[in-house]
């Protein structure tokens, strides 16, 4: 009799704990700011993956992309008791303290789309859209192919502090200096448009004024490349000055269709969100070990390897968009 009672208690305890353990995983993705179409894509990937995995998911973002604007949001999510905080950080180090607080409470912290450069110890893993070391060379090659590998080019970047921009620019300079294929291409200037359309436009116009022999501009920022293309379109000089860079198909479609821009590159933000959700779910379930060198499979994406410093690349090389394939994409 007593044994039966004990068994019954044990069974109900197991059921209860099982029920507790089966509580859906709560994930939140904190974007850089609202109204940014780029993050709407990543959000889509997250949402769809969470539907498949049975996780609860929310997307929040501050109104402005200042370095510290995400801090109250992180605090609020900790208060809400989420299990995973994924964030596209507005600053490499402003959130160190609050992210440590989150991890102390057992929350998995992922940097998605950008990393906390120099402060990687404050996050658990990082999901990047591509191998950032290949981005620079990819862009230089695309630019070269458009201008016949000869002439003066310039770079129109975003903000001077953005770690991803600086990684890519450094790689571009290195490629230009070391690879003999590009020996006739000369980088004459690097200017910063702060990811603002107005500023990017004035910087582009200044480039054209200061360097009348300019034949190409690489703008590895969606705001910059669109602004530069607009200037070229307005002046009708698409034959003389070639604009390329990292752009969103939705913003660049018009420019491709009318020939202002021949080709540009990007990756798939949607896949980033998808991968991040699957990875977080796997780690919390115990099916994926968050260690360097681990390989795991994700539906639709194939095999993903966890690299140095717990960084994962969603795809290896950039995708090139041009008149042939631009209509296939709707982000």
């Amino acid at each position, binding site marked *: 009799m007593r044994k039966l009672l004990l068994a019954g208690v044990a069974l109900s305890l197991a059921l209860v704990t099982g029920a507790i353990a089966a509580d859906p995983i709560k994930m939140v993705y904190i974007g850089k700011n609202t109204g940014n179409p780029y993050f709407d894509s990543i959000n889509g990937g997250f949402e769809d993956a969470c539907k498949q995995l049975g996780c609860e998911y929310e997307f929040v973002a501050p109104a402005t992309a200042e370095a510290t604007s995400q801090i109250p949001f992180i605090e609020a999510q900790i208060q809400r008791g989420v299990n995973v905080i994924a964030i596209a950080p507005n600053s490499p180090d402003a959130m160190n303290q609050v992210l440590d607080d989150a991890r102390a409470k057992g929350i998995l912290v992922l940097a998605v789309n950008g990393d906390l450069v120099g402060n990687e110890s404050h996050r658990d893993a990082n999901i990047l859209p591509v191998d950032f070391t290949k981005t620079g060379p990819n862009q230089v090659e695309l630019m070269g192919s458009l201008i016949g590998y000869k002439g003066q080019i310039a770079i129109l970047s975003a903000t001077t502090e953005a770690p991803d921009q600086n990684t890519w620019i450094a790689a571009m300079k290195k490629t230009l200096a070391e690879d003999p294929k590009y020996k006739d291409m000369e980088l004459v200037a690097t200017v910063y448009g702060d990811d603002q359309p107005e500023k990017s436009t*004035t910087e582009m116009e200044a480039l054209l004024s200061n360097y009348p022999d300019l034949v190409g501009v690489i703008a590895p920022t969606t705001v910059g490349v669109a602004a530069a293309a607009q200037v070229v379109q307005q002046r009708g000089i698409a034959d003389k000055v070639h604009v390329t860079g990292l752009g969103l198909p939705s913003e660049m479609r018009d420019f491709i269709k009318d020939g202002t821009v021949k080709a540009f590159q990007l990756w798939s933000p949607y896949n980033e969100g998808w991968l991040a959700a699957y990875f977080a779910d796997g780690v919390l379930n115990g099916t994926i070990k968050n260690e360097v060198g681990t390989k795991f499979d994700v539906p639709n994406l194939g095999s993903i390897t966890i690299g140095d410093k717990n960084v994962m690349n969603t795809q290896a090389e950039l995708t090139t968009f041009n008149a042939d394939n631009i209509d296939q994409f709707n982000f």
Partner: protein
Amino acid sequence: MNFLRLLLLRREAGIAVMIVLFCLVVGYFKPQFLTLGQLRIVLLLTPLIMIAAMGEMMVLVARHVDISVGSTLGLAAMVSGLLYRFGPEVPWWTGIPLSIAVGAALGFANGLLVHLFRLPSIIVTLGTLSLYRGLTFIISDARQIDRQWIPSELKGLSQTSPILGIPWIIFIAFGVAILTYVFLNHTRIGRQVYALGSNPVAAPLRGIKVAQVTLLVFTLSGALAGLAGILYASRWGFVNPSNTGYGFEFQVIAAVVIGGVSINGGVGTVLGTVLGVLLLGCVAAALPLLGIPGTSQTAIYGAVILVALLIDRTVRQQGVISLKRVRQ
């Protein structure tokens, strides 16, 4: 000779001189600054500010202030943007009257709150700045209206030109300035704006319908901000709920103040405001050309505002001193 002296003593001459000096100095280092193409660049930077500055000027002359112009611009632009994106097929120019109307309504709301409840306009427009920006996010579901949804003829206003390679949008801006001049100087109600601003207490005694004039200036300010909004879509090709018009009010107020409009009301000319806008446009165009890093540009704007204020004060010193004596 006397006439020339009188001309030079005018506030506007001071600004014109500043512009010429500035351009000459920059032109010395960068000769390409003094070309027609550069003029085109400068002018292209200014139409939105010019239009909104006309409205802001009228509000300031009436002894009020409107710091919600940026948010009004954004909301008006977004309404038209949403129409283009989700609405039925409409002619490309539909957005223009629509944005103007939306802006006018928003401006009217400001005026109503200021006049009906006797609230200080700086606080009211501080509140509507937030309110209108929030509404912009809500109606757009925080998504931007991409380039493909803005009609190309609308974008063409900033590109195609009837003459001298100067696009339509610049003519529109100067047209607004001319209309404002005519309104303020050659209509009864326009002159009443000045009277109201210089002495709000005495105004009703002089037969000025304070309610009418106040509501009018705020409605006009809103309407012009709305026009600037649809022209934002024309100039940049998209409408974004966070960026469109964000921080715009500071640029507009800076231009207007540099142009000699007094914060105490009753003083200011259209010509001065136009020159103020042009000066800021020249500074904005020159900085990237001179290779001055973006990090210093803000400091320079601040310094320009302060210097302009000091010059203004020195020029007006005579008037101020006599005023002080009378008061005491």
